[in-house]
């Protein structure tokens, strides 16, 4: 038991030191990297490790005869959660969300310290000590609180009331409801019934399962299946269309959507809304192929109002590409990311 707890304590101390070091820049801030795509799992497991570490630490200190009051345990644990949320998670989460998490974790800590009468007494004893001011130290502490609290609260309300020039928040719908049909280059496409004419098996039939067997999943960097090279001179049918789509993508789209289709192209940093990340399971993976066709053909300017058509730099690609080229690019985007388009039923 003791050995186990010592290991836990060691992990806790090392983790804490690394985190603090990273926050204050003692060690490089990317010492422990957040891996794209796995962040929620990583954050949860990191927190679990920390909790185990703290438990070990507390056990070890106890067995060494050092009593760490429950009062400070509760407060420090809450402070730790807040620090972690603020500094560790990237991209940063807004203050309002952090405040919500803060309240939830506060309630949790409160429940922990007031689980039974004895614990609760232990927890509130330091507070009562200060209120009663029986010793000189406590008296000094009480005087300090009496002066500091009004100052801090007054100062805080001054800071919040002072006019600020923060960015105004505007909520934009990323995937607005599509129209029933769209007219591109003189032809009308009904979104529910249209199909990508190039997603075909060797028999020339629309076949989603066939097309997606040609890419294999390996973490984020999905690769083509062995012997499924679209650049093979003998590549025919679906694979040939993938290559043609890729050529169009890398002549037109990668400037914003990036070489790995992750929305980090050359010009992406300048634009807001940011270009879509196709490797994110929340974009093309959960949309229908015809929805993508509509978005590509009509671009930002063709969005409904809730999509903020005035701000998006997405070109209406019907101005630059033929209908066939648009379908091929869409084919390539699914091939490269390894996702299936969603079906209508």
């Amino acid at each position, binding site marked *: 038991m003791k050995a186990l707890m010592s290991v836990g304590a060691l992990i806790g101390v090392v983790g804490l030191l690394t985190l603090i070091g990273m926050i204050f820049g003692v060690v490089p801030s*990317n010492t422990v*990297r957040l*891996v*794209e795509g796995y962040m929620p799992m990583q954050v949860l497991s990191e927190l679990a490790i920390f909790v185990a570490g703290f438990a070990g630490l507390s056990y070890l200190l106890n067995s060494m005869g050092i009593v760490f009051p429950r009062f400070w345990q509760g407060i420090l644990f809450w402070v730790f959660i807040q620090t972690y949320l603020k500094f560790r998670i*990237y*991209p940063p989460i807004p203050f309002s969300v952090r405040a919500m998490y803060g309240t939830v974790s506060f309630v949790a800590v409160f429940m922990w310290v007031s689980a039974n009468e004895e614990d609760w007494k232990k927890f509130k004893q330091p507070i009562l000590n200060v*209120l*009663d001011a029986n010793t000189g130290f406590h008296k000094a502490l009480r005087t300090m609180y*009496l002066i500091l*609290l*009004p100052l801090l*609260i*007054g*100062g805080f*309300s*001054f800071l919040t009331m*002072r*006019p600020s*020039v*923060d*960015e*105004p928040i505007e909520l934009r719908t990323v995937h607005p409801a599509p129209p029933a049909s769209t007219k591109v280059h003189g032809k009308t496409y009904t979104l529910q019934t249209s199909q990508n004419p190039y997603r075909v098996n060797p028999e020339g039939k629309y076949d989603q399962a066939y097309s997606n067997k040609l890419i294999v999943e*390996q*973490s*984020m*960097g*999905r*690769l*083509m299946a062995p012997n499924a090279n679209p*650049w093979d001179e003998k590549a025919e049918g679906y694979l040939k269309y993938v290559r043609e789509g*890729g*050529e169009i*993508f*890398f002549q*037109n789209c*990668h*400037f914003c959507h*990036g*070489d*790995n289709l992750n929305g*980090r*192209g050359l*010009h*992406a*940093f*300048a*634009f*807001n809304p940011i270009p879509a990340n196709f490797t994110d399971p929340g974009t093309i993976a959960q949309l229908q192929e015809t929805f993508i066709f509509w978005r590509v053909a009509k671009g*930002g*300017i063709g969005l409904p*109002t809730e999509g*903020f*058509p*005035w*701000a998006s*730099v*997405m*070109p209406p690609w019907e101005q*630059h590409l033929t209908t066939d080229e648009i379908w091929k690019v869409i084919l390539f985007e699914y091939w*490269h990311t390894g996702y299936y388009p969603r079906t209508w039923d």
Partner: protein
Amino acid sequence: MGLIGNLTNNLGEQVVRLTMSKLRTNVKPTLVIGAALGALLFSASVGGVGVGHAADLPAGFKSGELAPAPPADMIEAGKRVYFTKCVWCHGVDGAGDGPGADRLWPRPRNFNQGTFKIRHTASGELPLFNYNERQVDSGKNDLFDTVTHGLPGSAMPPWEGILSEEQRSQVLSFVTTQLVKDRKFTDKQSETQTILQMSDLKPVEANEESLKRGAALIVDKKCIECHGVEGRGDGNAFNLKDDWGFSIQPANWHKCWNFRGSRQDPYNVRNIFRTFSTGVNGTPMPSFADNTTVEERWDIANIVNSLCERDVEGKPLSIDPLTDKPKINFVVPSAPIEGEISNDPENEMWKKQGRRYVAMGGQITHKPRNFVNRIDDIWVRSLYNEKTVVYLIQWDDRTKSVAEGKLPWAPTQVNVENFGVKEQAPKTGEEGSIAAAQNNYAVYNDAIGFQFPIKWQEIPAPFKPRFLFGDAKFNADILKWEADGSLRSFKGTGWDQDFEERDDFEEKVKLLKAEWKNGQWTVMISRPLRGDKDDYDDYTRFDVGKYIPMVFFAWDGHNGDAGRKMAVSAFYYTILQPPIPQEVYIYPAVIAVGVVLLEGWMLTRRANKKKGKVL
């Protein structure tokens, strides 16, 4: 900033004097001797220090062994990675001629010659690559680090988190053995490895002394001849070419986040030291390892690093890890000023007002698209008084461009494709590519512009006139300054509509300053807050404390920018900051008093309870 400013000013003078002394036959001897003496003194004081002791090796370098050849299965696996991820730009034969190549500048690397830019090896040598070494930033695996971190300022992205370390090693095994055709990474006969020992070298502290020595050295070693007097890449090297004959431009030291070798750590002086020590193969940037001591190189790296843009307090800008560029704040605040607003950017009132970084991307929405925009950011500040609001815009542009003669189109014309302003065709081959066309364009005017919504007060939120010159329903109020000295005011009614002129307003806008100096434009534009009457049909009325959407446009005349071929920003907001109202001081005081009363009540209650009294 004061020290740096002084240093660079002094530098400017020195360069002018040096150039003058070159022109005249009777060279002023004192200066030259002084410089030589200085250099001697420095080298004497630090001579003999360094890692490489072998007589023929430059200081700081050591001889190394060639890495073992990667096994066949790694090469085969790497081929799959290459033909999924890399082929699109680097091409089937690795000649840097994939489908994306012709619209890129810099062009993708042609692997065939084995010429690689960012290395720890001596000039001309192959970079370090070892399929067994998977430690990022170890200094032992240059190509692995390049694939991991990407090459900022080019289209090469960081592949970390996308390809596993194994996959990165595999693809490099394929590239180095199959696509590098003229040289062999394992050929002991023809290849040597002389490796810069970065881990053994300790940076010299960037104190005033070191910066002073560095400032003298960048003149002495002729760095500024290409990189410019202030290091903005605007030296007399306008048409430099790389080994393949493509135009190449010297790095702008003020944008360290665009350094190819910055390894996603742009303010790290070690990256500059490495590039300066090893040179950049395939480009005119030589290695300075043979004619500088290690200490001199640290001094130079320190001064170059110190020139990279910093915030008001002199701290490095925080870099967004998602984009590897400075973090963006989309609000351009305008501070109130009593009385006249100075037209001198060095004036205290301007220095106090923090700059805002405005990121610029190519206009790639409508034809003619601008795939390569040479202006990728501008810095904006704003002040206002009771009558006018003034915008001070500064941006780096290596060339001052003013069109010769009269432009063939009217200032209001936006659709100028008929006059030869065309977008790059998708596939042209090397000769017709953007990289080949750079610096051969017809020269138009450098220009800057910005737009506000006309009558924004009446536009229901969240509507805005479209970012590209407004639309038919909501019009844009556009101000455009061009390097021929004109400042014009237009009404924009859509991306494909020529501007409408608004003559009556032009008399009221003022150009307070427009100057190009050492690779930087400084333009200051003043406009009235409101018109004479309260009728504001034709221009934007500024109300204090309101967020007004704003979009910036920039044209680089030497990039062939005109009409819609330009750089453009996202929507920013400008806001006239209100003077702080009195309530802000009163209410917190009231709250504090309330807290004191609450404390008194609590203490009384506690005391009573202890005494057994019940309230």
